[in-house]
């Protein structure tokens, strides 16, 4: 318990640090939200007046402190460009991005673990070599390009879904999930090949260790050794990798959302950045950072649950 408490405090501190750095970035990089809002109607006087109205003339630390204070209270501020509360703007976007990320990670786990086990068990066989070659190709395909290929194959040729015909979860949950599966596959594909490769080499490395010989000496067959002994050990680096992949997916979903025409967090982030709509950008970045930090925390917990050696260090 004490360990978890410490972990949470560290996480919160990290989040505050991230938000501070992002806030600082937007102060340093050129671009004025007041100017962006006024657009063609901007005159120096009007910009000055709007800056005052928006509170941009106050010192940096005051603005940051103010933002942090309201954020902690649950108030994310108002969008400069739309005048809507940021919270409302994000409320229906977050579930879309989260669904897509979770679906892709499930696909990754469901496909790569059996494939990794299979290739490790049949090391050097024809199937192993074919999968290896396929892996090399798929790994080099970025998610957005995979997205284009999938749109072409499943959308236009096989007509399994209508490209660009996003179905909101308010309309039909089944339709929404059915549409989301394709971008999820696009995101998952390159990650699957990396996971398979990592798991295969991990399993093969573990198979050479002394404890597998001990396992054989007790009368285990190859399957028993692989599933009961080797897999859990070989999963340790995979879990770290999956954690990193998950955060990568959340950040990378922005581009895939564009390819498939999905109104998720990615689209709103892009428009907000070009409009200098700082309250929205800040909220999204802090949410992303929170997701990354929470996932890393969970990975640590899972890691400890699997590896008793780490458990001991955490407790002492």
């Amino acid at each position, binding site marked *: 318990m004490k360990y978890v408490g410490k972990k949470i405090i560290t996480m919160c501190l990290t989040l505050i640090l991230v938000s501070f750095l992002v806030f600082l970035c937007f102060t340093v990089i050129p671009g004025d939200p007041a100017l962006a809002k006024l657009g063609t109607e901007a005159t120096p006087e009007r910009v000055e007046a709007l800056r005052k109205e928006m509170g941009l003339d106050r010192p940096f630390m005051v603005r940051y402190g103010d933002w942090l204070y309201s954020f902690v209270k649950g108030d994310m501020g108002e969008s400069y460009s739309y005048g809507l509360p940021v919270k409302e703007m994000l409320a229906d976007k977050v579930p879309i991005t989260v669904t897509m990320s979770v679906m892709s990670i499930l696909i990754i786990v469901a496909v790569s673990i059996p494939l990794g086990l299979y290739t490790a068990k049949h090391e050097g066989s024809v199937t192993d070599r074919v999968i290896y070659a396929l892996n090399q190709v798929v790994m080099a395909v970025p998610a957005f390009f995979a997205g284009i290929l999938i749109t072409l194959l499943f959308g236009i040729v096989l007509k399994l879904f209508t490209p660009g015909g996003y179905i909101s979860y308010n309309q039909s949950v089944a339709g929404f999930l059915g549409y989301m599966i394709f971008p999820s596959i696009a995101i998952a594909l390159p990650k699957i090949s990396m996971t398979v490769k990592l798991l295969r080499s991990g399993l093969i490395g573990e198979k050479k260790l002394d404890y597998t010989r001990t396992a054989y000496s007790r009368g285990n067959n190859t399957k028993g050794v692989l599933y009961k002994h080797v897999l859990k050990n070989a999963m340790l680096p995979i879990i770290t990798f999956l954690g990193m992949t998950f955060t990568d997916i959340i950040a990378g979903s922005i581009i895939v959302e564009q390819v498939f025409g999905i109104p998720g967090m990615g689209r709103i982030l892009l428009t907000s950045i070009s409009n200098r709509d700082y309250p929205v950008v800040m909220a999204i970045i802090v949410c992303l950072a929170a997701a990354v930090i929470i996932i890393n925390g969970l990975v640590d917990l899972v890691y400890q649950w699997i590896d*008793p050696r780490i458990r001991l260090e955490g407790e002492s």
Partner: protein
Amino acid sequence: MLEVKNLNIEFHDHSLPETVVYRFNLSMEEGDIVGVVGESGSGKTMSALAICGLLSRRDMKKEGEILFGGKELLTCSRHEMRELQGDDIAIIFQEPMTSLNPVKTIGWQVEEALRIHTEMTKEERYERAIWALTEAELPNPEKVYHQYPHELSGGMRQRVMIAAAIVCRPRLLIADEPTTALDVTIQAEIIDLLLKLNREHKTAILFISHDLSLVRKLCRRVVVMQNGYIVEQGAVKQIFENPQQEYTKRLIASIPSCEEGKEDKDFSTEEVVLSAADIHVSYHSSHGVFGKKQEQKVLKGVSFALHKGEVLGLVGESGCGKSTLAKVIVGLNQKYEGQIGCAKGSVQMVFQDPYSSLNPRKTVGWIMEEPLKIKGGYAKEERRKKVLEMLQKVELEPEIADRYPRQLSGGQRQRVGIGLALMSEPKVLVADEPVSALDVTVQAQILKLLQKLKEEMGLAILFISHDLRVVYQLCDNIIIMKDGEIVERGTPQKIYTAHKHPYTGQLLKAAGIETVGTAAQA
């Protein structure tokens, strides 16, 4: 029970097939204890692995017959073999640290053979596992059952391996160098445990070892192997007292003996070349940003003086701080309290594993020239000449200078290691377990070399070892360390005949030299 006839094992992984075991013959009765001795590469482990069916690489060929309880093991199906493994035939390995699965509990691993070979219920298995852990003399078996391998010491892990091996009450237990990785006092305990299991359960034991004194203590019959051949086999008494073959004689002669009387030499008039006064070292560790700091004392006030021409033996078991002391002396550990007195650059070190301490990508000549390059002031030809001279001193051929470390044998590498340390003409050599990784016959040669170099060059040597027999042969004075403190010091004669600290007695007993006292008095 076990009958091995004309076993040949061949590897086909290179262009030419390589035979590692030739015409291996062995027969064992129920309750027998047979030792197989030989140096590395003699084929002893290969034969043992073949018997328990763990040699099944595709690139190897096995011929002959292995009959176990009337069943032919070489030709039977994998399935039939698996039914015997862990049930009737069990094996324990050399490396207790890595032979257990790190992410499974001890209980799970001990019960594994039961899950595979019996229909026992969970409660029955638990009971049987506790029985096995108790048989293996693990303190507090109920607690150990729920622990993980990393929470146990090497000795305890080897006991767990034994418990897991005997849980199905095997008829044959194969022990492949089970004590080599353990401290001497623990070695003796494991041997006693094996003897007890044999006595109480009539378990036959096939004991594979390079350590002749252990084989003599445990076994009734011995098989001596060299280069894949059986050189000689017979009853222990016959082999040790009346060996017939040249190789067996050589092997027995290279066991360091403590029975010859040794004269005490007085070095107090000689110049002190290295002194240590009240050395303290502690390690600090902390976990995470908020972690509590922990202090662990490794050395607690160690003092000694080494004189010119003296060989000082430093004896202790793993974790006693002897390697930390060596690091402090040669300057690899700067975080210490106390004083080290020695002339700058006068101390050089020889390491235990000569292979991993030599750069594999450079030739021996390049490696040995390096200290001269760093020192500067030598022309290229001069450096080469000095290297060749040194090779001659450590009794190596001059061609060795152009070879790479991997092309050398273990003994040759250790000679290079010694030569390298001597290149900068030190006054003191700190040798950290320099012969522990070597075969007995090679060990004897290296010790002889050190003795010779000491006399020729007037070196002082701090010889760190866990092996009291080796230390007795080589050293003029001995200090014994336990838990970071020196518990006893004196000449070999004094330590071996009239030791004061009980721990010294324990070490001597474990090394099987308790009789020296009486022999010297007689």
